[in-house]
């Protein structure tokens, strides 16, 4: 399913008090600025990443507050895949995210819920 994030390394940080904003098709959530569905810029670390639309969907959901337990069902609805596929793809994506320091903050907060 999802292509993998193409990536560089940088630091984790708490940005829980930031609000979600959307200006001119660019949305910013928790320090991440999404440009369309294939490019995200981390305003904290200054790192940027290209990602697939599916990876973008999962990342947006996570930073937008969707719980990991709800994510497979949302994936199934969005992409018409079965539960096993969505669960596996989410887990693979999270594994990759956890290895990327600037973005691992979005995984560590939620890992216990999965």
């Amino acid at each position, binding site marked *: 399913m999802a292509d993998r994030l193409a990536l*560089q*390394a*940088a*630091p984790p*940080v708490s940005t829980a008090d930031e609000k979600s904003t959307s200006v001119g098709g660019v949305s910013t959530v928790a*320090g991440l*600025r999404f440009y369309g569905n294939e490019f995200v*810029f981390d*305003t*904290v*670390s*200054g*790192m940027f990443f290209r990602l697939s639309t599916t990876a973008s969907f999962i990342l947006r959901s996570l930073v937008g507050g969707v719980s990991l337990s709800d994510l497979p069902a949302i994936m199934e609805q969005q992409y018409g895949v079965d539960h096993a596929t969505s669960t596996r793809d989410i887990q693979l994506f999270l594994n990759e995210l956890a290895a990327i*320091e600037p973005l691992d903050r979005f995984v560590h907060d939620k890992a216990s819920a999965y």
Partner: protein
Amino acid sequence: MTKQVPINSRSVAITGLHRGDNPQPGASVIMSLRRRFPGLRIIGLSYDPMESSIYCRDNCRLDAVYLLPYPRTGAKALLERLDAILEKEKIEFIIPSLDSEIMNFIEVQDALSRRGIRVMLPGKAAFLRRSKENLSMLCHRLGIPTPETRAAKDIGELKKFAEQIGYPVYVKGKYYEAYLVSSEAELYSSFEELAEMWGLPVLVQEMIIGEEYDVVGLGDGHGGTIGSCSIRKMLRTSAGKGFAGVVVADPRIDNLARRFIRALRWTGPFELEFIKAPGRPHLLFEMNPRFPAWVDFPSQLGCNLPARLLERLMGTEETPLAHCDAGRMFIRHSVDVLGDISDLAELASAGERIGSPLLNFSGRS
């Protein structure tokens, strides 16, 4: 009410005028000042007739250029040369922009003041506390993370420190230049080269692989920071010079910078350089006592620190500094500046050039 002097009759001198593969900050400072004060008289103080800004026109132009003796000749030689220049040229302010000359300017600061020239520089103690050889000790005292660094006064010490830290290590000059060294043999040649060029001590530092973050700012001398801008270097040359950068909004970097400047009660421009390796905090590995070569980038975003410095020195109303939004970026673009050998000849023989470069190339194609 104080009567304000028209900006066209004010004059400021700038150093650090070469913008090659290791760009000096002077051209960026000039462009920032011209951005706010187009009619300001800007005098170049140069160490070499081949410094590139000497030949610039437009927003980087110099109204006059004078050669200075090399910084290693000391403060007395600097003052004598400035006295000679002052017989021909009014200079009210100086913004020194090279690490190697700052101490000379600190030493002649009072003498300059008596001649009506104002500078915005740190005290000698603050300057020495952040020097490359003392930075590690200062950081440990302040609880600010820093790479492991030792200062060696001879090759024996350097060898011992390199072995303690573990190869590969960076061997760094007192003011400039660093070599990545993987063996004892390389260590010897690096030491000799750096000691001869920049003097002792020579530094040895652990190698950290990671992203580089820089902060440019202006200290108010009371522990506060008048303004600052933080970037991640997006492109680095083989010498580690940033040729592209993007503004970041990282409260951890801001906090480290604030603490460091507060502890030093720093006066004037500064650049803090951090490196961030995965799993480690931001490590402060250098503090430069001047504006960096990219200072015109925040100026273009409305955070014009050189102009703010000049406003402070002039005692005029201070223009608010804009916030630099995360995501704004710059990429350095090299250009060929036209010149004529007559300009070089004038400067090389007379040690000065009054007025703009001689040839006017406009209209040619």
